[in-house]
């Protein structure tokens, strides 16, 4: 168990370090001088050189990488070229929109997918299973941002139940803020739920064919109890794996969906930064999201050990 955990942890750390090198290298090859960018075209060569020294741009490559990576660990990402404020301040303002959105969507998709998967697996091969899986097949094919546009049309333009976009901020109260996250969360969650429901169903069907399920049934356990207690628990590993992968897609989806609903989250920040060539912001947000993906997948690896006791005894 300890060896398993340590190995996963080591892999996650190594991946994180390599990923940071990739992101750093990308910023290095980008043409253009950040100092020149901050000072504008009218600045003299001396001024630019002075700022380059101040920003540490003239230091050796390895030193700059270590400095940057060290900063990351203390959440110091450097200063934005265009806003001239610490990047972390920009991120902090935006993450309170993006993170709740991703989490609500994740919770929503799980709450929809697991029951649908259980229902379908329990009625494997019957008409209701076919209908549910047909709907899931359709859901997998729907791009979340198009679904978002359709939701806006239906609920904001026609029925006028929720705002079509924008975010009042958490300062305006929890309810108005949540209300503006409802449609984006649904748009993100449904396509993901469709995938997860399919995986849950096929994992459950696989497990339901096992001998121990027949034994449990034979000793008189009701079908429902077998499904929940024995089957679902054993089907959790593939479901958890997909959940971990989906988190990466959810984060990416959040970036796109924020643009549909004009939500001031990390996605909007990164696209503004791209158009303004504020590369340090782009780099920081990408690094942050990559770190989130790696950490979530580590947590999934660790949760295997919780769900599956066999992994605990294995060296």
């Amino acid at each position, binding site marked *: 168990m300890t060896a398993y955990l340590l190995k996963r942890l080591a*892999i996650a750390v*190594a*991946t994180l370090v*390599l*990923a940071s090198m*990739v*992101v750093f290298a*990308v910023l290095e*090859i*980008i043409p253009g001088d950040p100092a020149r960018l901050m000072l504008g075209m009218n600045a003299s060569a001396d001024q630019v050189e002075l700022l380059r020294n101040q920003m540490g741009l003239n230091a050796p490559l390895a030193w700059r990488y270590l400095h940057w990576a060290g900063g990351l660990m203390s959440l110091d990402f450097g200063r934005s070229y265009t806003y001239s404020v610490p990047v972390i301040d920009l991120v902090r303002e935006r993450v309170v929109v993006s993170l709740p959105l991703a989490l609500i969507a994740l919770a929503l998709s799980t709450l929809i997918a697991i029951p649908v998967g259980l229902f379908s697996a329990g009625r494997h091969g019957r008409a209701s299973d076919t209908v549910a899986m047909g709907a899931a*097949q*359709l859901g*997998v*094919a*729907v*791009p979340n*941002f*198009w679904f978002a*546009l*359709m939701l*806006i*049309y239906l609920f904001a*333009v026609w029925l006028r139940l929720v705002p079509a976009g924008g975010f009042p901020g958490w300062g305006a109260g929890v309810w108005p803020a949540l209300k503006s996250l409802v449609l984006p969360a649904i748009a993100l969650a449904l396509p993901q739920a469709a*995938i997860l429901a*399919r*995986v849950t169903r*096929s994992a459950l069907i*696989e497990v339901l064919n096992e001998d121990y399920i027949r034994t449990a049934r034979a000793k008189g356990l009701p079908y429902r109890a077998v499904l929940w207690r024995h089957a679902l628990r054993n089907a959790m590993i*593939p479901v958890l794996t*997909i959940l971990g992968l989906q988190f*990466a*897609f959810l*984060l*990416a989806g959040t*970036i*796109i969906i924020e*643009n*549909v609903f004009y939500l001031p989250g990390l996605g909007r920040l*990164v*696209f503004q930064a*791209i158009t303004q*060539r504020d*590369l340090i912001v*782009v*780099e920081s947000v*990408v690094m942050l*999201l*990559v770190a989130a*993906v*790696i950490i979530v*997948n580590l947590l999934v690896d660790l949760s295997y050990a919780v769900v599956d006791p066999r992994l605990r005894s294995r060296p």
Partner: protein
Amino acid sequence: MTLHIDIPEENLASILAKAFRNRSFLAGFVIAALVAAIAIVSFFWTPYDVTKLIVADRTQAPSLAHWFGTDHFGRDILSMIMVGARNSIAVALVAVGIGMGVGVPLGAFAAARGGLVDEALMRLNDLVFAFPALLSAIMITAIFGPGAINAIIAIGIFNIPVFARVARAGALAIWPREFILAARAAGKGKTLITIEHVLPNIVTLLLVQGTIQFALGILAEAGLSYVGLGTQPPMPSWGRMLFDAQTRMVVAPWMAIFPGMAIVITVLGLNLLGDGIADILDPRSRRQR
């Protein structure tokens, strides 16, 4: 030289007979063929010229003259969807090609060598996997600027670890088989065995994964073009059309409805096709996604 392909032992006729009984395959095949046909036709003929802007015809509702209506420049939506199909297919196809071309040899090599080489390649896979296609696209765009080529590269890079994993898992299951042992006894090297015996046996797996990634590629291209990181105007693309539609939802909802439906139908068709192929060639297989 004989190839050992042991999954489809039946002849082609019986596979075809099975294919025609498989509803998922049939539906998927018909849809995919239709989309491909539309894309090909668009090279020779579209109802209207998509490069001509006719301001007098702008944002017209669907009618007999314009089945799917017109956009804010007076361009015919149906014609744009036809040309957009070409673009979506090209981007997704090349991205799958990159993923397969790099990923399959890597995965097969890792499985053949094992040990440290395998471990190193799989860790490299983890690294690429940590960058969802959208994040790579953002970084690539930050360096080179937006464009269809960069979208292809971003989606292609993300496909590499996917195919590497599938190829490796498939190959690892083939290596302990008896006919591999026979080939080794005959003095064949690992590379030759991989090419002659392992790869032919994992073609099914790769084909199924290929259709899934093709469908995902079309979704990814639409997403990237929608946020401005993919195909650039004036080349019509489904994602870009949705971006243009977004601010005009109230006056011209058809600008959003039809391109979106084109995406849904295409992706649905490809997924059904993938399910069908998996069913026909290996009835026990379950799609992993």
